[in-house]
């Protein structure tokens, strides 16, 4: 007789940082493992532990503004569709939400931004990809061409994300990791990483053109694309300083491109 135990937890590892998610509802765990395929593992240690309390959708406005605040040493994360808290020292937390994938996806993003802010890394509104062992990051607001450039990538390019890039600092270099955070492409990135060779500020145009940008312009553009949610002065300062450091170390260019695959001939 074979006994199959109902699985009540999974580990989602993004950017080398793992979050164990525990929920009594097996179907919720299975849903997470499908959604985060390639990033989900089971067993082993995790950097963070979260208990999920599944509840019926509340009548509150699901689009209510997100608030991330530090209260008596605990992070509180609140949006219309979920409420969570997290102890940064024990790295344990809990979230109350309905059985949907979007609330916990937001939790993951916030959790990683908090962790990265303390070590000089970022989540960035940017597509990123690896070619010949080097990562290229393509930053831009909605409509700038992140999904376009990702979808035009030739077969030798490994896509890390078309929407949210994961950047960690390792000594004096920066590494881009694949993420499951998708944009219009609706396709999860590969769970791999590579050192960042360049950051491109995207702009659609009538020709392919790469031009250097001033440090200040690079800094402004980079800062405007960082995802950060916490209302915390020290962390905001830390992110600002880290951003300035990043643009001081990583080559930054403005990439004007035609929406066809010829742009990738310039990116080697």
């Amino acid at each position, binding site marked *: 007789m074979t006994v199959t135990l109902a699985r009540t937890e999974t580990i989602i590892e993004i950017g080398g940082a793992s979050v164990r998610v525990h929920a009594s509802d097996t179907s919720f765990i299975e849903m997470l493992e499908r959604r985060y395929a390639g990033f989900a593992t089971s067993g082993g240690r995790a950097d963070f532990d979260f208990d999920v309390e599944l509840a019926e959708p509340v009548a509150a406005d699901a689009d209510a503004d997100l608030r991330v605040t530090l209260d008596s040493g605990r992070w509180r994360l609140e949006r219309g569709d979920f409420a969570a808290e997290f102890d940064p020292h024990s790295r344990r937390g809990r979230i109350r939400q309905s059985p949907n994938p979007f609330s916990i996806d937001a939790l993951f993003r916030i959790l990683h931004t908090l962790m990265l802010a303390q070590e000089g890394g970022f989540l960035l509104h940017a597509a990123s990809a690896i070619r010949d062992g080097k990562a290229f990051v393509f930053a831009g607001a909605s409509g700038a061409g992140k999904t376009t450039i990702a979808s035009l990538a030739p077969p030798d390019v490994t896509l890390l994300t078309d929407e949210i890039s994961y950047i960690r600092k390792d000594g004096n270099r920066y590494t881009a990791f694949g993420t499951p955070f998708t944009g219009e492409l609706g396709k999860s990135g590969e769970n791999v990483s590579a050192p960042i060779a360049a950051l491109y500020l995207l702009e659609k145009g009538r020709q392919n053109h790469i031009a250097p940008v001033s*440090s*200040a312009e690079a800094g*402004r553009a980079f*800062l*405007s694309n960082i995802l950060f949610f916490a209302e915390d002065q020290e962390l905001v300062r830390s992110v*600002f*300083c880290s951003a*300035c450091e990043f643009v001081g170390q990583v080559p930054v260019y403005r990439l004007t491109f035609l929406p066809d695959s010829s742009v990738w001939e310039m990116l080697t």
Partner: protein
Amino acid sequence: MTCKLYVARSRSVASRKLGEETMIMSGLDSTLFTLDEVATIIWEAADGSKPLEEIVDSKICTQFKVERAEALRDAEALVEGLAGHGILLLSSESLTGANSPRKAEE
């Protein structure tokens, strides 16, 4: 008699010089400011110990071809604007010791 205007960078900001410009982020509301070359010179000199007119005389008029009165007017407009956002402090008395600037380089 015109009273002297002392200027000092607020502690609630982080700043970083990038090229000729300086980027400043308010720690209060994350507002981002960019200062051009001349404004950067005033910002860097704003340690609370010198009146603005002395900064203009010693740092601006000696480096740029500009009338003193015009440079002083522009400098006053700049510091009043920055003070309005809480990233610079103004006083008729020396601000030495009241605020030590926090720079991103630190």
